[in-house]
């Protein structure tokens, strides 16, 4: 697509970004509200000699994505809650084997089949801890069609840089919303690519480097050994020593957490002099942004803090941003999934409250939030 500004759907922007980031393998199982990503990918990928494949279920979709990633391709899948649940075991495999890949989860209202095309932010904790075992994940929460583009590119870059699965945790509203999206010049995009070993010796140490080992991709004569079992830095199974799994858990944890500031950004709006801070991400931040503008007209000193990366939770940045506020109101379209993390970074002496929409699976009504802000601000 030519650079320029387009009126575009979030899902469509996500697909364009994936291809621009270098994605050449996309596997999918049909699900609402992620369908448009697949439609667009099926049109775009063959023109780049990239593979679009519809698999027999979401387990196969993420499995084939991981397989393709090990041949050196950038690979992605997209889904929604029910499919995201099915993918969890293999997401854990990707974490364990340090496989770069991108999983777009367009959150819809659940549990179970729920409402397929209503916005809810019910998968925030599943993204963080949905697979079994102890691990860290990266999850980014776009709040606009533009960010569906920008954060998809960022997701690929982080996946490549840290050799890990990255979740784009979108919600139905940002995915289906159409608005202005600026497609930049290809040459202006920053694109990261995984380190690949150049010698067999280098390839042998293919795992468990705290500063990320080069990935011994398949078919290059490295005789790579990739396993979801506990293993050492050579990828060899070490399935009976607790020290081996201890080392894995700590290394893959450290690899992500020690780079939290570089991975998970935040956006601040009118927080400099704010007494009240709204904290919101994804589509909730759209209402929050509007409410801040309205409240400012009434002379209320309110600002917005928006975490862009939810996991690893940007605690240091959040704490710094909320340093001088007196009240914090957290908006989520759930019953408080990120809330405990936010509560922990609220400064001593400030009060914190949680505000879901009046009816879950709808957007917060601005008046409702505004009343809350004014009522409590008075």
């Amino acid at each position, binding site marked *: 697509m030519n650079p320029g500004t387009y009126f575009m759907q979030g899902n469509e922007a996500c697909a364009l970004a994936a291809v621009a980031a270098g994605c050449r393998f996309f596997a999918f199982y049909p699900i609402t509200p992620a369908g448009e990503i697949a439609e667009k990918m099926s049109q775009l990928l063959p023109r780049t000699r990239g593979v679009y494949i519809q698999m027999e279920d979401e387990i*196969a979709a993420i*499995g084939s994505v991981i*397989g393709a990633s*090990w041949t050196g391709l950038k690979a992605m899948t997209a889904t929604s809650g029910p499919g995201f649940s099915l993918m969890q075991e293999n997401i854990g495999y990707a974490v364990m084997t340090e496989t770069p890949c991108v999983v777009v989860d367009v959150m819809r209202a659940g549990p179970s089949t729920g409402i397929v095309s209503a916005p809810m932010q019910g998968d925030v904790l599943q993204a963080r801890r949905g697979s079994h075992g102890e691990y860290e994940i990266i999850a980014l929460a776009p709040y606009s069609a533009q960010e569906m583009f920008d954060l998809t590119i960022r997701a690929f870059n982080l996946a490549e840089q840290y050799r890990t699965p990255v979740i784009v945790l979108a919600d139905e509203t940002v995915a289906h919303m159409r608005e202005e999206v600026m497609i930049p010049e290809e040459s202006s995009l920053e694109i990261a690519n995984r380190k690949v070993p150049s010698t067999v010796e280098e390839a042998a140490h293919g795992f468990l480097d705290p500063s990320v080992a080069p990935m011994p991709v*398949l*078919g290059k004569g490295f005789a790579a050994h990739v*396993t979801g079992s506990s293993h050492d830095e050579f990828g060899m*199974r070490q399935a009976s020593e607790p020290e081996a799994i201890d080392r894995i858990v700590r290394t893959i944890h450290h690899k992500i957490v020690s780079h939290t500031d570089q991975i998970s950004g935040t956006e601040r709006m009118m927080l400099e002099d704010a007494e009240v801070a709204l904290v919101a991400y994804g589509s909730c931040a759209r209402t929050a942004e509007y409410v801040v503008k309205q409240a400012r007209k009434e002379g209320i000193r309110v600002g917005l803090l928006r975490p862009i990366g939810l996991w690893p939770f940007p605690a240091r940045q959040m704490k710094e941003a909320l340093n001088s506020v007196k009240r914090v109101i957290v908006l989520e379209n759930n019953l408080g999934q990120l809330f405990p993390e936010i509560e922990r970074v609220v400064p001593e002496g400030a009060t914190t409250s949680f505000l879901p929409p009046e009816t879950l699976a709808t957007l917060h009504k601005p008046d409702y939030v505004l009343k809350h802000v004014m009522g409590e601000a008075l």
Partner: protein
Amino acid sequence: MANEKTHPLSKYIRKGAQTHTHCPGCGNGLIAQSFLRAIDKAGISKEKIVCVAGIGCSGWIPSPFFDIDTLHVTHGRPIAFATGVKLGNPELEVVVFTGDGDASAIGGNHLIHAARRNIGVKVICVNNMIYGMTGGEVAPTTPRGMKTTTTPFGNLERPFDLSKLVIAAGGTYVARWTTYHIASLVASMKKALTRNGFAFLEVLSQCPVHFGRRIGITDPVEMMRWFQKQSVTIEMAQGMKEQELSDKFVVGEFQDVEAPELTRLYAELFEAASRDSN
């Protein structure tokens, strides 16, 4: 030292991989050697092979003993992962090592869809008719009436005929042998490796520890003799009644047909798409 001989297949064994986890008398060693002989005879460079292993005893055939790229994945999913590997790099010879439980219980969906797609992945399915690794539980391939650790009163269910299942799903090359029929097994493996499309090789294999002791045959050689005695070739079976075949293992090459292979169809699609956009 001058008289020390090197095994002709040792070049395929990963340096440092000395001990293995198979039980005494397991058929996996025979299948491992058959596979290595097949790639050797077929002249396929080991750098061009990727083994994808599932979870179960069969996964430990390539992982980590073969000095070959190996992706040892989650239970039931090796065919799904292999689909991504083959599509990601169609030049690679992608071989799945899976068991009867891995391929037909938890992973049955991936098996039939890979056969339907005719993707050029070669599946070696080690069928020991039981869950060996986890302690001898009933499998979808366990004969009806058989007692296992989880069917103490006998198995109520009918077993899958895996080869028939794959043929029905569109498999283009399907063969079944037992660990007694090593020469035929090597020949079929070689044939599967030199074909383009999806191949399914079912190998009935002895598990003396969990299966054998339940049927009263704990000696692996005796179990292989039992395979020999109970096996009939597909050619012989065609003249036999269903009743006569009920306790027999039908072996042979069941299907060998050509159909367009999936990665080749993608290559054609890419050509057409690039013509379109020019």
